[in-house]
């Protein structure tokens, strides 16, 4: 066995071992994640229906994309719902989560239980979150209608269901955002805070001058996380009604087209590619920030 020569120079055999340690997982990723994604992009230029041989598929150029944006009725509503999803989860869950994080950071009495209660929904699957809220929303058996006497079908009525789903989504996201800010607040320099107090700065000033700047990079991370989560908000909507009747999202359209009855593979792949394009922009922004933080 080759000898390990410290962290500055390593021997030939160990160099190979080290390289393998990285190459193996990387190849797995390329093979099982990136190749399929590229496959989707390629399929999006064809008219393949998934049944015949793939060799019979015709190359259509950008026709699928043209069709998606012009003659596919659910597309623009889905884009709109995705945007609403993003705006609401960001604008509601972010201030709430930040507020809770600051509160918890002060270590108020019993904060442990308190933190747990907000953290609880974060570990639950989105599908389960959808179901838990079904118990609240159901028209005939739901807690909300039971207590208020209303007869609104919260999940069923297209006037309300997007908002009902958003309440459930925010419910989960708030705890998530809270954890992100909590991690950020740990980085606030305590001595700086003390110094500000000694200098007679009031608490408001202290917050905005000392605490908030530390949170600034987290704000961007939170924005990007909200974007990515809103693009992936699939499970929740899927368990409610498979993303129909007012709950169309881009992700549900993809699934309906490629694994649904329609089996319009090329068309569904075009939708998937559009999703890929949008999310990769935000992924790039996010990783830039995360990596920069990491190098400090």
């Amino acid at each position: 066995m080759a000898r390990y020569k410290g962290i500055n120079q390593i021997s030939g055999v160990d160099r190979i071992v080290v390289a393998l340690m990285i190459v193996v997982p990387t190849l797995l990723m390329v093979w099982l994640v990136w190749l399929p994604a590229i496959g989707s992009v390629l399929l999006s230029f064809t008219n393949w229906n998934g049944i015949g041989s793939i060799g019979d598929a015709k190359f259509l150029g950008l026709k699928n994309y043209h069709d998606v944006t012009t003659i596919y009725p659910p597309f623009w509503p889905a884009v709109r719902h995705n945007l609403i999803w993003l705006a609401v989860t960001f604008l509601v869950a972010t201030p709430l989560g930040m507020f809770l994080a600051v509160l918890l950071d002060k270590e108020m009495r019993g904060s442990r239980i308190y933190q747990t209660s907000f953290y609880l929904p974060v570990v639950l699957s989105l599908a389960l979150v959808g179901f838990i809220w079904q118990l609240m929303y159901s028209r005939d058996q739901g807690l909300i209608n039971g207590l208020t006497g209303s007869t609104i079908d919260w999940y069923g009525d297209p006037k309300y269901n997007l908002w009902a789903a958003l309440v459930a989504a925010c419910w989960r996201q708030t705890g998530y955002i809270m954890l992100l800010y909590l991690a950020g607040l740990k980085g606030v320099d305590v001595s700086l805070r003390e110094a500000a107090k000694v200098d007679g700065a009031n608490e408001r000033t202290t917050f905005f001058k000392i605490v908030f700047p530390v949170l600034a990079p987290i704000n961007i991370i939170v924005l990007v996380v909200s974007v990515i989560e809103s693009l992936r908000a699939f499970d929740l909507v899927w368990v409610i009604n498979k993303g129909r009747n007012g709950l169309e999202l881009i992700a549900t359209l993809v699934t309906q087209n490629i694994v649904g009855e329609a089996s319009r593979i090329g068309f569904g792949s075009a939708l998937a590619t559009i999703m890929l394009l949008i999310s990769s922009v935000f992924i790039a922004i996010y990783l830039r920030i995360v990596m920069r933080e990491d190098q400090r």
Partner: protein
Amino acid sequence: MSGKTLSTGQVENVHKQPRSGVILSITAWVVGLMFVSPVLWMILTSFHSEPDAATNPPSFGAPLTLEGYRSFFESGPWPSLINSVMASVVSTLLVLVLAFPAAYALSIRPVRKWSDVLFFLLSTKFLPIVAGLLPIYLFAKKVGMLDNIWLLIVFYTVMNLPIAIWMLRSFLAEVPSEMLEAAEVDGAGLILTLRKVVAPVVMPGLASAALICFIFSWNELLFARVLTGTVSQTAPVYLTGFVTSQGLFLAKVCAASLVVSLPVLVAGFAAQDKLVQGLSMGAVR
């Protein structure tokens, strides 16, 4: 921006604890209680009998029973629960076996410049998985792996690798270099150093990465739905089917939901403090 002003208020209250602080604490507790109420309601309903669960207005004080749990377990959930345990535990172990060496290799100096590799690995985590679903489905069909739990195991492993590598790397950064040098002086090889010197130090990191991978794989629904059938369906797939077919029997369905989410709740409590780090990768799924 209400968040900011309110939190400023809270900052003031810490040192002058009195009245306003108490009011704020009470408000916070009420909000917290409201927050958990949907879960509490589900738990309560799961212990009610079906007629009590279905009343309108809701009956809070109805007698408790285990009837819902009994009928759930009689519906034959065991194969799917075992599949889920298998898929999440085996994939988590595989993730650790692959991620720990990779994280080590990425954190020692000779391959510092490979941070581009890390960048690549991480970006993978954020791809909307729907995007690659169809080619994966076709591939699985071609090689006859549909409805095979090992296919899910492989995908969950790949899905969780980036986050595990990322988490472990930050733990490895805390291994003092003197320890590595001491191991070198003693003539320990690379593998021996990893096993005897590095692994014990990063044990807490390994544990929390494992818990997070477990939570993600247990909760995964989309792949499980598309790639499994009757033989290898996982607990969440079984649960969604159960909710669809038995949806009117609320107590039963609540009991089912609780049983299926119990493992992640336990893992979640165990990983609570460490989860922050994994979450900042934006990856709870």
